[in-house]
Structures are given as structure tokens and as C-alpha cells.
């Protein structure tokens, strides 16, 4: 008996320790839902899977992770007057929201890029504020160089538990250095790989909205279109609110479909679809803000009452509070039915609402791209087509309010078709609104 126990004990201990401590509750909750839980039997169908990540507010007993923030401020000549005054105020607002454990740095740029405040604890607020108040205006706009320098300042503290954020404020076109949206998009994508997100704030009517939204999009930052400089402090406060409430980082959503199901596209977000795998990356999730992804798949014809697995869905992320990796897994499946009413009743309005909104946003973006490329008629066509499709889809499921919403694309089509060029403000509004929908950015 004793020898048996002697042999068993190490094995038991080993088992105990190898199993590790009991896994804690994952921070995130999520829901997988479909646009229609029941599909008509006998035909090839399309289904949309909505992966909704519910991010709770950060519990009080946890201290929020420290933040490594770099502000990149445009001080080109066009910022003179109210704009630069409000920008200074906004920068001070942001600084005051940080704590001593946070790092703050400030890069100012015109045609020349300069680090005004090297990365340091936000506790040195007096000295930092004095520097901020001294910002004056200058020449042209070297946006690429400025973002590069901001990233260099961030990298000085890239290791560690910091939430890395660059906030870029600009009122003008980038006219020194790379200025095409695709170039800045590549920079954004590279920064995302390092875990750095760039939030872009465009003020006034002169900035390049394509460039600013692309940079933010690819690096998973926020984007704000600010018409009046008076709103700047409020915008900065909202942005800081997000940064200070990061609950999860480096989120990867993987969707794997069985061989018979084919992933078609991701609606509203960037991602990779390779054979039967879909991958979507997000850089961070904010406490109290839900974000979702929409994936459309093609389903082979099914028999009535057959249950078809649509996908295995995995979500892995780093819990920003505990710095531990966490993982969620689930699967989505759909049922078939002969009865039309069952199909209609199974429609999930929230999912469809999300689909319609995102399709509309994506359509507006595509139309803007076509319009800016000089293909005006195709742009109008794009909007009209999307409008029709979404209307009929919503209507057939009995959601007339959604159909009405889809109809508003016709107004946009009219604006684009008009002989006068689309005003710059409208373009900026379209881009920023579409951005907010596709990224589920909180309204400020």
C-alpha cells in the first residue's frame, strides 16, 4: 500500500501541477448569431454570422493598464488662429486625463518634424503644459514623417504592459513626403503588427479624409471628423476615454468552416479569407463597448430539419488587466425548413440591422472611391444597386424600417449624380460616418 501510494503521489502531484491553476473566467463575453436561424431547404443559401464581442466595464478592483500616448499635432500655417489654440487646449485636456503611471509625448510638425515633449511620465504635467502652450504655427505638412516620429517615440517603451496609442491631429493635406492613402495605409498596417494604433483627427475642410481614415482603419484606431475647432477638447477627451478603458488587446477572430460551407466575405472590416479559414484582427477592445464582425458564408442545399454546422469560431486575445492570454470558442450552426414563415420568423433583426448598416457604409466607401477616381456614373450605380438589394432583402424579411434606411442611399446617389462636384464636407462626413459604423466607434 505504502509503495503504491509512493508511486501514485508523484503522479498525482504531477497531474495537479501540470493541470495548472484553475482557469479564471474569461474577461470577454460573446454571442454568435445569424441573420436567419432557419434557412430555406433545397437551395444554396447565404448566411451571415455575427460575432459580437461584449466587453464589460473594467471592474473597479482592477487598475487599468498604463498608457503610452504620443500626440502628433499639425502646426502647419493653416492651423493658425483658433485651430492651434483649441488644439493646445485639447492636448492639455488629454494630458490631464492621464495618471503618473502613464507616458506622454508630443510631436509637432509642419514641413519639419520635432519632438517637443519626449516620452515621460504624465506626472510632469506642469512642464509639459508649458511646452504645449508654446506651440506656434509654421509651414507645410509632413504627415508621414510626423507619424513616423510619433511611432519612434512610442517604440522607446514598446515592451511592457502599456497600451500604445498615437493620436494624430491634422487640418491639411500631406504635401511633404508620401501622401497617398495607400502609403499611409501600409504604414498603419505595419504599426498594427507592433501593437500601435493610430487615431486620426481631421479638423476643418482641408484634410485628406481618405488618407486619415485609411491610416486609422489599418492600424485599428479611431477616426474623428471635426468641423469646428471648438469641439477639439471634447474629442480628445472622448479619445482618451477609450484609451484609458482598454480591456483586451491583440484580438484574433478565427472562423473555420467545414469543407461544404464556403466563406464568401467579411462585411465592413478587413480580414483574410484563405480557403476555409477567415481571420480578423483587432488591436484593442474598450471596456463597455461592444464590437462585432460580420462574415457571410455560402451554405450548400440542405434537407428540411437538417442542422448544418456553419463554422467553428475562435477568439483569442490578451486580457489587458491580467496580461494573460484568453480564448473563447464556439460554433455556429443553422437549421433548414420547408416552411417559409419559419424562415421569416427566424430572422434576427439586430443582425440584419448590423448587416444593412455595414453594407450601406461599405457601399458609400466604394462609391466615394469610384467618384474620386473619376468614375462618377459607376459610383452612382454602386449606390443605387446596393440600395435596391438591401431594400429587397430587408423587405422580404418584413423589416420595413430597415428597408427605409436602405433607401437613404438613393439620396446619396442623387448627391453624387448632381452636376456640381460633391462638396468636401460631405465627403468627409460620409467617410467618417461610414468609419464609425464599420468599426463600431463610440459616438462622441
Amino acid at each position, binding site marked *: 500500500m505504502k509503495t503504491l501510494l509512493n508511486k501514485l503521489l*508523484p503522479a498525482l*502531484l*504531477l497531474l495537479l*501541477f*501540470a493541470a495548472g491553476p484553475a482557469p479564471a473566467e474569461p474577461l470577454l463575453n460573446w454571442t454568435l448569431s445569424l441573420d436567419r436561424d432557419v434557412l430555406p431547404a433545397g437551395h444554396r443559401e447565404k448566411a451571415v454570422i455575427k460575432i459580437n464581442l461584449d466587453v464589460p466595464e473594467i471592474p473597479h478592483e482592477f487598475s487599468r493598464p498604463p498608457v503610452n500616448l504620443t500626440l502628433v499635432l499639425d502646426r502647419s500655417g493653416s492651423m493658425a488662429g483658433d485651430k492651434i489654440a483649441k488644439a493646445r487646449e485639447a492636448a492639455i485636456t488629454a494630458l490631464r486625463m492621464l495618471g503618473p503611471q502613464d507616458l506622454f509625448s508630443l510631436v509637432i510638425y509642419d*514641413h*519639419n*518634424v520635432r519632438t517637443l515633449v519626449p516620452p515621460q511620465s504624465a506626472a510632469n504635467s506642469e512642464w509639459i503644459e508649458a511646452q504645449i502652450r508654446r506651440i506656434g504655427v509654421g*509651414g*507645410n505638412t*509632413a504627415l*508621414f*514623417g510626423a*507619424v*513616423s*516620429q510619433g*511611432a*519612434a517615440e512610442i517604440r522607446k517603451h514598446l515592451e511592457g504592459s502599456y497600451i500604445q496609442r498615437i493620436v494624430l491631429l491634422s487640418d491639411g493635406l500631406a504635401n*511633404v*513626403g*508620401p501622401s497617398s492613402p495607400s*502609403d*499611409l495605409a*501600409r*504604414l498603419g*498596417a*505595419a*504599426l498594427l*503588427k*507592433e501593437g500601435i494604433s493610430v487615431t486620426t483627427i481631421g479638423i476643418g475642410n482641408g484634410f485628406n479624409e481618405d488618407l486619415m481614415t485609411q491610416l486609422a482603419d489599418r492600424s485599428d484606431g479611431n477616426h474623428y471628423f471635426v468641423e469646428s475647432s471648438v469641439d477639439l477638447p471634447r474629442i480628445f477627451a472622448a479619445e482618451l476615454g477609450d484609451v484609458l478603458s482598454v480591456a483586451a488587446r491583440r484580438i484574433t477572430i478565427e472562423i473555420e468552416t467545414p469543407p461544404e460551407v464556403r466563406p464568401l466575405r467579411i462585411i465592413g472590416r*478587413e*480580414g*483574410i*479569407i*484563405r*480557403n476555409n479559414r477567415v481571420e480578423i*484582427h483587432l488591436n484593442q477592445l474598450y471596456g463597455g463597448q461592444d464590437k462585432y464582425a460580420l462574415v457571410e458564408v455560402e451554405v450548400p442545399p440542405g434537407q428540411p430539419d437538417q442542422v448544418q454546422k456553419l463554422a467553428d469560431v475562435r477568439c483569442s486575445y490578451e486580457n489587458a488587466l491580467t496580461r494573460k492570454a484568453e480564448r473563447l470558442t464556439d460554433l455556429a450552426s443553422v437549421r433548414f425548413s420547408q416552411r417559409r414563415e419559419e424562415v421569416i420568423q427566424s430572422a434576427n433583426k439586430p443582425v440584419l440591422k448590423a448587416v444593412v448598416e455595414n453594407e450601406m457604409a461599405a457601399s458609400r466607401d466604394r462609391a466615394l472611391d469610384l467618384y474620386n477616381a473619376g468614375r462618377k456614373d459607376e459610383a452612382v450605380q454602386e449606390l443605387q444597386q446596393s440600395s435596391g438589394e438591401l431594400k429587397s432583402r430587408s423587405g422580404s424579411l418584413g423589416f420595413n424600417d430597415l428597408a427605409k434606411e436602405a433607401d437613404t442611399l438613393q439620396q446619396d446617389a442623387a448627391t453624387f449624380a448632381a452636376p456640381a462636384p460633391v462638396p468636401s464636407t460631405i465627403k468627409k462626413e460620409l467617410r467618417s460616418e461610414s468609419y464609425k459604423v464599420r468599426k463600431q466607434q463610440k459616438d462622441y
Partner: protein
Amino acid sequence: MYRPKLIILAWLLLLVPTLLLGVGALRLLQGEETRLASSSRSAANDRLQAIAGNIDLAIAEVQDGLMETLRSLPDGDLLDQLDQWKLSNPLVRNVFIWQPGHGLLFPDPTHPASDEEAAFVRRYLPLFSDPTGWRQTASEERGAPQRSAASSNILQERKELRQLAKQAPAAEPSNRATVAAPLAPAALAKPAPLPRGGESGWRSWYADDQLHLLGWFAPGGEQRRYGLEIEMMALLSRLLGNLPRQLPAGESFALLDGNGRIFHQVGRFEVTPKSRPLASVPVPSLPHWQVAAYRNPQGAGSRGGILLIGSLLIGTFSLAILLGGSLLLWQAWRNQRDARQKTSFVSNVSHELKTPLTTIRMYAEMLGEGTIKEERKRDNYLQTIVKESQRLTRLVNNLLDFSRLEQGRRQYHLEQVDLNRLLLALIEQQQPRLTEAGLTIELDVPEQTLTLASDRDALEQIILNLLDNAIKYAGAGKSLSIELSGEAGRVRLRLRDYGPGIPAAHRQRIFDKFHRVDNSLTTRQQGSGLGLSIARQLAEGLGGELRYLPVQSAGSCFELSLPQPGD
């Protein structure tokens, strides 16, 4: 002795060397300027070489590091490894696997997994469909200047240093591995995978008007190649720090892309596409890219600034020398002239004194001999003696006045003077001489007598000198008109003669002391050349002025004007 030629020679002797000196200095300055410009250009060049070298080195090291990782990827699981590498490394934009005969295996050209992959396939279509395209063509290589041997050496040395630094302690076979510890340590670190043998290379590629860099590796014994596309924006973004941060005002540097567009600039003054660089140096790893240095065209000390200031200084200095020298020479000339004048003055005065003296002595001797019997003759002789004495007195008075005026010791005693009476008395006194000269006086005086508070003697002297001149020089004109008037607080006396007049060139100079118009008239007449000079100085001393008025026909007109303050 009067030698104008000497003075002119002296002046030339001053002028020519000064000019030569000035020109020489300017040439030296220009030479300095050129030397400075070329020296600053070469300094900028050196700096640019260093910057370009740094950038090149950084890129080469990045390429080295990436290639090493590529070569070390294990064979099995290659696709996953490549994909993971792409997802995690900011410098890797895209990865690919290619096989001759099959073309691009990954990404799948028919089913790109994202827009970015689709764009990648499009971008490199010509390369992937042409198996001979993997080597850089000769024409392309010309666009990228080869790295210098020195640079390549540095690269190699740094690489070896890095390898050395990364060498981990040799893994010992563990003696403790037999007992399974309860807390089993994590699996021993996997031995670093060794890079595999085979060909590899880097290819620069142009698409969408931009430079792209592709690295490939063909493992030995295999047909296929795999590799990566560098994320140019991420790479370049990190290289911007190689441009100097602190620059003196007026200097700027810029990184120019393959199309000559400014990619990034540092320095306070703005570089525009129109700016011309002071110097530029190509970057070996980035074909057609360059780093360039700029100088602010408006900055101080820039080209032409030193030249301008220097020229101004030299010019001013030369001018000062010339002016000073000319001033001295002019003074010397004036001194010579003054000396000449004084000499001729002394000679004139001597003659003027001698003539009446001789007459006086002659007549006095004759009277003294007692040989003159006729009463009338005796009276005549005595009158002549008196006249000549008076003449002497006048002359001496003038000289005395002159001397006092020169020393500033002439004092004016003011009293109420009846001008009409004064004028008439003078004319009467000089009547004999006037008649002798053939001059008739036309007098025009106001009915109401003019009174003036003034110095009697000075007034008399002035009018006397004027009359004297008229008698001596204007006799041919037959008539002399004298006009006295007073209005608007001023008293005017005009003397107008109809003689030969005064040539235009002398009209100012006649009031200079010792000045006599040099003509046949004056050579015949004795004169000291002081009369008008004294008269004018006296007039000014009385608060008025004496001037010459030009007249229509022949003759001259002199006007004495004095202030008559109201009672």
C-alpha cells in the same frame, strides 16, 4: 613755385595704386568666396555620404536579417511559417512561394485571400511569369550605385559582431534530466535553426511609380523559391531618423525618392520641389533615391553675401583713400594758389604803394628845390601831393581793414547814418577821379531821406571800393547809375556800370580775396584784388549782403542790401 603738373602727377600716383589695390582685393575676395563655397559644398557632400552610408547600412542589415530568417525557416510547415512571419513582422508586407513551370504557388493567384494579396499578385505578375526575371538586369543595376568596398567590409564586420553577440552558451547534456522534477522546467530552448544552403538574392522592383524590394531564397536541391516583399513604408519610416536632427539655421537636408520628390526633410527652412540642392548623394540600396543638402538662399553668409559686404568695404576704403588723398592734394593746390596769390598781392601792393609815393616824393622834391616859380604850378603840385596821399591813405585803410577782417577784429560802431547825405558826400569827394575816368553819375535817390543805424566807416569803405572798381575798369561805359531805395524793411544800393562787364566764370570768384580777373584791363591797372572781398565781408558784418546782379546788356551791376529794422 606754381607747379600744377606736379600735383596732377601726385594725384595719378595716388589713384592708380589705390585702384590696383582695390581690384586686387576684390579678386582675392572672389577667390575666397569660391573657396568657401566649394569647401561648404564638399562638407555637405561628406555629411551626405555619411547619412547615405548609414541608411544604406541600415537597409543592408535589415535585408541580411530578413534573409537569415528566411533561410532558417524549417522545410515542413513552410506555408504556415511564412504566413505567421508576415502576420507578426512589421517589415514583411507579403510572402510568396514560386515554382518554375507552375508559377506562383502562394498566394493563390486565382483566390487571393485579401485585397492586399490580390494587389501583390498584380504588382509582380511580370516577374512571376518570367523565370529569367529573378536577376537584376544590367540597366537596373546602373540605377543603383554599388556599395563601396569599404561599406561592404563594414557590413561584414558588423554582421560578425552580431553573430558573436548572439552566441548562446553551448547546450550541455543535462545530468539532471533522469529525475522528473515535479516542476518540470519548460522544454529546453529549441536549438536555433541553422540557415540552409542555397541561392538567394534581393530584387528591386518598380510598380505604381514606387520602389519595392523583393527577397527570395531557393534552397539547394529544390526548384522552388520562396521569399518576402519588404514593407517599404515601415522600413522607410524607421530610416527617417538617420537624417540629422539639429541643424543650424539656413541648412536643410532632404531624402528624395526615385522620382525626385521630397520624401522627408529636416531643417527649419522649407525645401520645395523647386529648391536646388547644394549637393546630393545617391543611396546605394535604394535605386535612384538620394539624400540632398540645401542652403537657404536668403541666409546671411550665403553665396554673394560675403562678396557683397567685402566689395562694399573695399570700395568704401578705396574711396576713402582717394577722397583723403584728393583732399590733401586739393589743399596742396590751394596752398600753391594762395601762395601765388599772396606773392602777386605783395607785388601789386608794392607797386600801388610805390607809384603815389614816387609822385609825392618827386613833387615834394621839386617844391623843396625851390625851382618852381609859378604860384599856379606850385598849387598844382601841392594838390597832386594831397591827392596821391589820399590815395595812399585809401589803400592803407583797405589793407588795415583787410587785416582786421582776417583776424576777426573789425568792430562795428553803430550810429544813425543819413544815407542820402553819405552817398552824395562820397560822390562829391570822388568827383575829380570820376571825371578823369570819363564817368557820368546818374543818381537816383528817394525823396525822403533814408536813415539807417549802421557803421559809417564801413559803409563808406564799401561804396568807395565799388566806386573805385567802376573808375578803374568801367570807364569805357561812360555812365554809372547809382540807385538808392528802401522798401519792405531793406535798403538797397545799386551801382550799375556799362563797362566790359564780368565774364560768367568769374562772377562768384570776384568776391574772393586776391582774385583779379586776368585780362588786359587788369594788367594795365594796379589793384590788390581785395576790394570786393573786403566790401562783401563788411556788408555781411553789417547784417546785409553784397552781390553781383547779371544784366542784359554790357556792364555790371552790384547791389548792396542792408536790413532796416522798423522803428
